[in-house]
């Protein structure tokens, strides 16, 4: 009974969300919703592996490959971002395999895994900066505009001037990510991975192929993050090595998930909404004159969160009301 009710509530909320653009929201509100969905999608992708004990500080690498891969192929060779996305995905999978396989094979876990992946995301950032003749270095780069003669969208160039199109695109991706999260949550792999994160030797002794199971989840998570990077680049029409790769964004992803709640399906999304509202709210409150106030509060809150609320906002709520979160 209870699950049926929850399902109905979820569907109604989803319908309301899907109808939101029709309610005549301003461009700014719509932009916030698009960003929340996008980051919700990316954070959910990260949490698929993070919640199973593989805390990666290197997802900035995959985000960077997705964003820059698509923009560079479009700008340099005129390759459609759709094809660019496929190529970027292939590169992402190759990189994830190159890093993941030895890590899992040689049992690099915990701190060491975090720091190896951190090195990876720095490598990607530095390569982008180092190729400054093509990528524009730290100044970032803008994909060449395809919307000439007042056209409102160019499907081939993945450029849409209407935020409503982006809203539905992001909504679809976000729902897909939740579905994948749910599938992973219900799969044997998840059982296997939970066993692995508790005790690798014991897991191996009952016949779990530790490296392979971890690798599968890592490839999935990396690929989704790469898609997120490409969507970010095409939506913002501007990418910068600092905002899509390197230590800053990689840490931010981890924090977003922790703030929302790593072990609940909607936790990463709550984290994304929370961080977005926090930074936008502070920006409105403090104004643009003083730089850094929002991040100061943000850093302080992260410290407090990890000390006092390690399960995150949604995790805490779920715990408090003893409700079984969908799939949780």
């Amino acid at each position, binding site marked *: 009974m209870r699950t049926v009710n929850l399902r109905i509530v979820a569907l109604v909320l989803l319908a309301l969300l899907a109808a939101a653009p029709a309610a005549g929201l301003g461009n700014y509100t719509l932009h916030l919703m698009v960003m929340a969905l996008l980051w919700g999608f990316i954070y959910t992708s990260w949490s698929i592996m993070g919640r199973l004990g593989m805390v990666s500080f290197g997802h900035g690498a995959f985000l960077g490959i997705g964003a820059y891969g698509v923009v560079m192929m479009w700008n340099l060779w005129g390759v459609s971002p759709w094809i660019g996305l496929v190529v970027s995905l292939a590169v992402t999978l190759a990189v994830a395999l190159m890093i993941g396989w030895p890590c899992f094979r040689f049992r*690099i876990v915990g701190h060491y895994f975090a720091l*190896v992946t951190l*090195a990876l995301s720095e490598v990607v950032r530095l390569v982008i900066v180092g190729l400054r003749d093509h990528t524009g270095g730290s100044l970032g780069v803008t994909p060449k505009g395809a919307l000439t003669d007042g056209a409102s969208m160019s499907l081939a160039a993945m450029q849409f001037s209407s935020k409503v199109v982006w809203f539905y695109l992001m909504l679809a991706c976000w729902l897909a990510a939740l579905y994948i999260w749910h599938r992973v949550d219900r799969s044997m792999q998840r059982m296997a991975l939970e066993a692995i994160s508790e005790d690798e030797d014991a897991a191996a002794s009952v016949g779990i192929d530790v490296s392979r199971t971890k690798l599968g989840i890592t490839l999935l998570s990396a690929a989704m993050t790469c898609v997120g990077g490409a969507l970010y680049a095409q939506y913002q029409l501007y990418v910068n090595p600092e905002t899509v790769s390197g230590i800053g964004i990689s840490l931010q992803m*981890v924090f977003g998930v922790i703030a929302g709640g790593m072990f609940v399906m909607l936790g990463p999304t709550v984290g994304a909404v929370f961080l977005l509202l926090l930074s936008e709210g502070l920006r409105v409150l403090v104004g643009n004159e003083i730089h*850094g106030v929002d991040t*100061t509060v943000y850093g302080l809150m992260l*410290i407090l969160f990890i000390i006092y609320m390690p399960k995150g906002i949604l995790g805490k709520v779920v715990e408090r009301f003893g409700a079984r979160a969908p799939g949780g």
Partner: protein
Amino acid sequence: MEFLDIFLLEAVLNGVLLGGLLALLALGLNLVFGVIDVVWICYAELIMVGMYCIWFLYAKLGVPLAIAMPAGIVAVGALGAAMHHFVIRPVLAAEPINQLLVTGGVLFFLQAAATVAFGVEFRNIGVRLPSLAMGEMSFSVARIVAFGVAIAAIAATYLFLSRTFIGTAIRAISQDRTIMPLMGVNPSRIYLMTSAMGGALAGLASCLLVLQYDVHPAIGLSFGPITFMICVLGGLGNLIGGFVAAFVFAQFISVGGFFFQLEWGYVIAFAFFIVVMFWKPEGLLARRR
């Protein structure tokens, strides 16, 4: 003789000078990790705070450098102790990854607080030490001073740890943290002292860096990752390993930067790090247990 280019030799020697400085950076982080078992992701941000301290005292208030620099060291040492007390202590029993993350929160906080306080502009203290010409090569005096001071500080730390009573207690705690309280050592006091010492070493590093680089809120991001990589490469908590790894890394950066560009030197160094992690996950010189 073409291979032994004079400029290549200059790059190698500059790499050695850089290595001394990186070794000092790694020392403080390694000391804290070895004793408390927590990686301070924000270590380079502590250095940034020290640089701002010195810049503010010297360039803004006109305090002489001879006072501003020790004041910077004390301030960062106090900051290290405060960070341990308010941030690390509450999560000592938590999962290691939460400890890593909480210091990441400190990273954001310090970086943003510096932006609020001083803006995003690059600041320098306006002291430019001359260059020393040796034949066709030239070396910046600031780098030579940094190298000398760093090596002296490392030697002093080593003597402190091996010759004094407190140093012995610190080493003992890092070897067995369960048995030492039974021997009458108060671990929380040792932790606090180690954190203050780690902070003071960061403060010392900031004195040396402020002579060579402009300070800005994001400067920690250019030293931070390289410092962890060095510590991990040398085996986290292994002071001698970190020392050796710093010189290896500095050569990659300096010589790589000589052949290509500075970023590529870093890329090669990081790639080398990743490969070594696969080959020897415990670091080049694994910590003796």
